[in-house]
């Protein structure tokens, strides 16, 4: 099992994501200019400020060659996890529904929060249990999840809301406390919290590791049944 972690100009958390992945499987960085994902089994689109986020968070990175490859990979069912800026990029690329707006505070917020697993039956959360609380940090200025009401109803009905901020802990004003969503096929997920910063109790928590462990189990199962 091998993870590929994208690196855009302005990515900040790609090395942390690489380190987190390597706790569970092999992993390598993928340069934004590469059109080839090198046969990886899962893709992580990491956090940071790709292209400075000077236009709109994630709006430029979606046009990079590597993102074209990621879109093809996703269409063919490959698992793609977008974290923070990666979530924004995936929304901009149309691989995930909805959008991320500026926090209601209009300020950057860096804080440990609890998120609840709403759907544990996805490639990203299968190592979790439904209702489980995960302690994972957030850090962003543009993390307020938004989608039109009808889309939200579809997401809820389709089990696409994967993570919700615990009651009272919504750090950014996200609609319905949504912290993470998936596409209808459940092979693309984006979340604002940073699981790669929650893989070691020494630096705060190891709860985020369950997402990486889930992906490894998912890929291993695909390989076993192939």
């Amino acid at each position, binding site marked *: 099992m091998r993870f590929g972690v994208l690196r855009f*100009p*302005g*990515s*900040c*958390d790609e*090395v*942390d994501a690489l*380190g987190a992945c390597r706790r569970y499987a092999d992993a390598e960085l993928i340069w934004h200019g590469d059109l080839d994902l090198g046969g990886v089994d899962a893709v992580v689109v990491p956090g*940071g*400020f790709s*292209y*400075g*986020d*000077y236009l709109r968070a994630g709006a430029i990175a979606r046009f990079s060659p590597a993102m074209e490859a990621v879109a093809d990979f996703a269409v063919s069912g490959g698992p793609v996890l977008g974290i923070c800026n990666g979530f924004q990029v995936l929304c901009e690329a149309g691989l995930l529904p909805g959008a991320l707006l500026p926090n209601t505070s209009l*300020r*950057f*917020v*860096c*804080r440990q929060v609890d998120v609840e697993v709403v759907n544990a039956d996805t490639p990203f959360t299968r190592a979790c249990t439904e209702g489980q609380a995960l302690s994972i*940090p957030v*850090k962003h*200025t543009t993390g307020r999840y938004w989608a039109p009401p009808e889309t939200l109803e579809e997401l809820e009905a389709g089990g696409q809301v994967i993570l919700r901020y615990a009651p009272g802990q919504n750090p950014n004003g996200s609609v319905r406390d949504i912290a993470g969503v998936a596409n209808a096929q459940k092979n693309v997920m984006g979340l604002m919290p*940073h699981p*790669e*910063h929650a893989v*070691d109790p*020494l*630096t*705060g928590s190891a709860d985020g590791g369950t997402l990486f462990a889930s992906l490894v189990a998912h890929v291993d199962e695909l390989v076993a049944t192939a």
Partner: protein
Amino acid sequence: MSTLAAHRELGLTDAEYEGIVDRLGREPNGLELAVFSLMWSEHCAYKHSKKLLRRLPTEGPHVVMGPGENAGAVDVGDGLVAAFKVESHNHPSAVEPFQGAATGVGGILRDVFAIGARPIAILDSLRFGELDSPRSRYLFDWSVQGIGHYGNSIGVATVGGEVAFEPSYEQNCLVNAMCVGLARRDRLIRSAASGPGNPLVLMGARTGRDGIGGASVLASAELGEEDASKRPTVQIGDPFEEKRLLECCLELLDRDSLVALQDLGAAGLSSSASEMASKGEVGLDIDVSTVPLREDDMEPFEIMISESQERMLCVVEPERLQELLEVCERWEVRATQIGEVTDSGRLRILDGDESVGDMPVTALVDDCPLYDLEPEEPAQPIYPDPPVRIAADADAAETLMAVLGAPTVASKRFVFEQYDSMVGSRTVRRPQSADAAVLQLAPDGGHGALAVSIDGNGRRVACDPYTGAVEAVLECALNLACVGAEPLGLTNCLNFGNPEKPHIAWQLTRAVEGLRDACLALGVPVVGGNVSLYNEGGGGPIYPTPIVGMVGRLPDPERVPVSGFTQEGHAIALVGPFAPSLAGSELDKLRGHMSDGLPEVTLERHAEALGALRAAVRTGELVTAHDVSEGGLATALAESCIEGGLGARVDLAPLRETLGHSDRLTALFGEGPGGAVVAGPREVVSALPGAILMGEVGGTSLLIEGDLELEVAALDERFEGAIPAAFA
């Protein structure tokens, strides 16, 4: 530009101008005068402080790079060095706080990666006027956002710092930023240019008109009422440009492609090129017509002194030039050969074929006249008493609530939540959870962890410049001891008023003597620093504010205590040579009083106690350790309760007995260096040498026998709510 009397407008004295004519053997042209005025400014030449700074101890067993390089560096084992430096961006931040603070961060980051280290942590020391002033709220709010904007975007964790609010900073706020970087020892690079014929390459942003003359106009003169008109002299930061520049430079160093590397800071190309040439004892030819410009009608002198951000200058061997250009292209970093190294010993400026400036490098860098200060202890107090903010008959409980709600003491969550404190996966202790930031070295292949702290208390230095400066070093060292770290090196930023005034010269001289004595006593070398003078505006000089940043190392990050109480039944004790006094305390300030003098400090006792505390922490048996600082012992106890969400029952009678006096308020709110609150299993705590047992952790309130009892929830609300309330 006419040179006639223009030198005065550029901040040079007549005598200095004569010196320039002397060294050139002719009148300087406009470009040369502009370059000299910057190179001979206080900001670049340290002409009022250099002699004084030579008194600081700079050698120690761990020192790898001392003062003079872009940043200092100390050995942290496993082939790794920690590079660090603190620098001020006070005047730009007072004029335009968002960009001023942001570019302050950008500048200090470049200093650190200029020597080949990857920046891993930022800390900030900030000073503003009181929060009931709209101007101070504006400067505070936007400085914090500026720091966050730059640090967060470039992906370097902001892990600590301090903020204080005093009336003397109302016009002239202080924004000091410290950066810590890590490098493999064999990858460090110096800034000395060498090898005549080697290309000189400018990397990074285009050169524009921003920041023209910032070093002389802003940084080396007092702020006045026309400051809004100086806004164009503040540079604009672009963290995305710097992020690419950073990664690009580190890759070039990994490939060992460069001969020398230097950042462009104050005075832009003029200063960077002169410094590189001076250190390498060579000359440099620069053709300004090759410099990529943001505006195409810039004059040669503007190109030479522009302070456009996110630029680096390097020297490369001709056969490595192509490789350099390819790496830069991959990172989308602009790179242009703008000149070459010569053996002329001169900085020659060309505009195409035409020579537009020709100056001896030594004249620019080494020959600026150095001035002796003329210190004179003021006969009268310099600073007015602060406004009264507490009733004269306030009881202990009311007093504690007032102190906890004082913005200088109150929680800085409003600030540190706006910073990414965890990128890099090194941060073992986040802000407020321990007394020093703790950064594990494992991700970089090292063992143990770094501990970093930044401290200073301008009001106490104003009361007593010598002792106040000593205390800044002691507080930093105590913060490190509370996490078990041994100090390896120190950096400082000396923020003072106009040194040409005798009483400011006296403050500066005494403070440097205090720093020197404390560093000698603790065996901590000064590896670099920065001086920010002329911090005056409107109401007079700022409090003299030496800021000390210290980097230490600890063997086991798993054993680092927290600042909060964690478990019912843990015994609580006070350790260290703590001798509280209300002189210079937060309570003194709330009462509207400015003390003259602080109690004397016996440095040897502190050095010994710091070693004992460090050893005790390293056993891993102490669970809580928190230094007693602003607001005294009652405040420290309240903070440990709030942080841990647990109450405590303590009796200060044993402390009063040890102190030999019975003044309850002094025991509760008196301040002084050296004291730490510790907690853990009773047998561990009571075995600590010299520990004064005070009580134990438990319940939902802080009970101080005979003085006060307050619910932790109420303390928490006050402590956490004070700064947000100022913005409500």
